[in-house]
């Protein structure tokens, strides 16, 4: 996978959390590859498919407690239902993916899917492993954005 696919997602995550939630996020270490069949690091997982100039998927994974803090800020409301949590998580991923995709050519986004639970297996294209971008909220904790894509 081309390394130039990565930076738009970091930039988009920074912009999205700053603009929609009023919180800063930052890169938290080196990129690593996650082999097919291994689980994402945290128990809340959003996935969105991409097609067009590139094909593949983007994944965001975060623990539920951190997700709840982010969605409280997103909604501007202390009361976050389970529906708000999954819907808001998917919408934040959708916004991040849209902003990043605009820098990769004409890319179409699928509808995001959000799941919770440990030991989920999320497979990518056989030729394109998940690249993990470690991120963090300095005050709340870590999360990952993962990208698995290739030129169409």
């Amino acid at each position, binding site marked *: 996978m081309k390394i130039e696919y990565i930076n738009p997602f970091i930039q988009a995550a920074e*912009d*999205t959390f700053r*603009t*929609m939630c009023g919180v800063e996020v930052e890169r938290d270490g080196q990129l690593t590859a996650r082999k097919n069949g291994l689980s994402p690091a945290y128990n809340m997982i959003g996935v969105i498919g991409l097609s067009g100039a590139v094909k593949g998927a983007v994944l965001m994974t975060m623990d539920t407690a951190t997700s709840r803090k982010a*969605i409280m800020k*997103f*909604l*501007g*409301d202390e009361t976050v239902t389970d*529906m*708000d949590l999954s*819907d*808001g998580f*998917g*919408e934040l991923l*959708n*916004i991040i*993916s*849209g*902003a990043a*995709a*605009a820098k990769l*050519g*004409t*890319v179409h*986004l*699928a*509808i995001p899917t959000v799941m919770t639970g440990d030991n989920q297996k999320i497979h990518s294209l056989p030729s394109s492993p998940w690249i993990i971008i470690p991120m963090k909220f300095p005050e709340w904790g870590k999360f990952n954005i993962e990208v698995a894509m290739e030129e169409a």
Partner: protein
Amino acid sequence: MKVLLTDDSSTMRKIQKRVLAGMGIEDVLEASNGKEAIDLISQHKFDFVLLDVNMPEMNGMETLKAIRGNPDSAKLPVIMCTSVADKGQVMEAIKAGATNYLVKPFQPEDLQKKIEATFNKG
């Protein structure tokens, strides 16, 4: 003023609703896809529509074309509010008759300005 919010994300609709309330707009109906939006447009007289693009059932572009293709709603102001930021797709929406276009992420004042600009155009 009566407004239709169309977005498959209920959290996004809550955020938009709060911005509208801050502008004194309380008469708001909600749709989670284009089909629901078209149904509501056929039953109510709206002053404008906020329309997402990526939605299940009927997406925002199909919905916009359906609105413009119906003489009863052809002139209804439609503000696209979407994560689709690709210039080609933005131009496609403008050509299809979008009155204005707001790319997510946005701050509340960005949405307010787009709504105000939409009505200043007329």
